[in-house]
């Protein structure tokens, strides 16, 4: 979930709404005159508030402006992931990687423990998606930032049109899958249109995205709902995972469930289903 880094109440409440990761924005959501104060707020928020297992991300400013100061503030505060805005090339990632490494060393944090999330928000970035995704071992995921991207393409968002972002989404998905990192879809700005939002989430889930960026807590239950597996899917996945465990214990090469042979991608999908069911609160550890 995106939220402005300049708002103390939102920073305090961010953990309440069940988002998988929280992204505090120091970039576009913070006016140029409040970059310093927001940086301090986010630093203290990260150090103070208990966000539990939720992943914390901070979107920093461009390294050529105050991005380095942002990295210093948030890496020291223990942020999980630094989100780079408007990533155009692999070099952007490498530059950020170097700054992060420097701060990690300076503050005694394990080098490499801070992740990078690269937001791709331009035509050039989309075409470089694979090299961006593979530019550093820190890269945890790549995401489409559609608002800037469509502007760059000289058009504007057309909600409900599944073709408009098709190329960018596929490029990012393919790059992410090749690099073995997460692919996260862009935000849906019309917070009052819950039906449109749900349709878009269903669409990007079908494409293969790992998740969706949200800008309002109200959108979270929709994403969780769409991504939550059905009872039938969970049951099937459980059977497959159990069979796989059993096969492993017995050293069997071939796994079969209900007389049907099951191969590796099916097991991987089943494991993912179980993981989603767990995070959706549909099953507990004891169910496995």
């Amino acid at each position, binding site marked *: 979930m995106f939220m402005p880094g300049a708002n103390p109440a939102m920073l305090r409440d961010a953990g309440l709404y069940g988002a998988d990761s929280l992204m505090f924005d120091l970039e576009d959501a913070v006016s140029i005159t409040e*970059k310093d104060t927001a940086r301090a707020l986010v630093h203290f928020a990260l150090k103070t508030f208990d966000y539990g297992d939720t992943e914390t991300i901070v979107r920093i400013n461009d390294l050529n402006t105050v991005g380095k100061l942002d990295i210093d503030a948030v890496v020291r505060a223990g942020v999980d992931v630094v989100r780079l805005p408007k990533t155009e090339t692999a070099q952007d990632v490498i530059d950020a990687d170097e700054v992060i490494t420097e701060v990690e060393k300076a503050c005694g944090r394990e080098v490499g423990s801070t992740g990078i999330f690269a937001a791709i928000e331009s035509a050039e970035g989309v075409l470089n998606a694979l090299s961006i995704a593979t530019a550093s071992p820190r890269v945890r995921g790549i995401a489409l930032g559609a608002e800037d991207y469509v502007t760059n393409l000289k058009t504007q968002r057309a909600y409900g049109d599944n073709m408009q972002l098709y190329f960018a989404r596929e490029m990012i998905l393919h790059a992410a899958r090749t690099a073995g990192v997460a692919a996260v879809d862009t935000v849906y700005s019309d917070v009052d249109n819950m039906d449109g939002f749900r349709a878009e989430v269903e669409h990007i889930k079908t494409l293969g995205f790992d998740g969706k960026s949200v800008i309002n807590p109200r959108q979270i239950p929709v994403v969780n709902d769409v991504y939550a597996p059905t009872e039938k899917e969970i049951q099937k996945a459980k059977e497959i995972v159990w069979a796989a465990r059993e096969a492993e214990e017995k050293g069997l090469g071939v796994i079969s469930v209900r007389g049907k042979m099951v191969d590796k991608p099916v097991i991987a999908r089943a494991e993912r289903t179980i993981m989603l069911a767990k995070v959706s609160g549909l099953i507990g550890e004891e169910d496995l």
Partner: protein
Amino acid sequence: MGRTGGRAPGIGVILSMELKQQAVAGTAESSDIMVTIDPVGGDAVEISLDSSVEKAFGDRIREVIAETLKNLGVTGVKVTAVDKGALDCTVQARTIAAVYRAAGTAGEFDWKEIDAWNA
């Protein structure tokens, strides 16, 4: 780090920030505090607080501001704070941001030092 790297003192070294101008940080929104720093010279530290939660947390907020100023090595200052229910960490963030602004080094926080206070 970067521009701050050159003069970052080690842990335990008391900063002494020189205030050059009046500065403000924070907003009047709920859960925030607006901190105004006025360099007045001398050694005194004067804090005047107007808080929507004065009875429950007024003393605590004044204590956090005073401690933060002490840690930053700031004296000769008048602080005017208007609070709308800010938490301790917000009070600290706003006070520090205002002092750095007043010192003409806005945003170049010495986190190594600052984090050492709360360790």
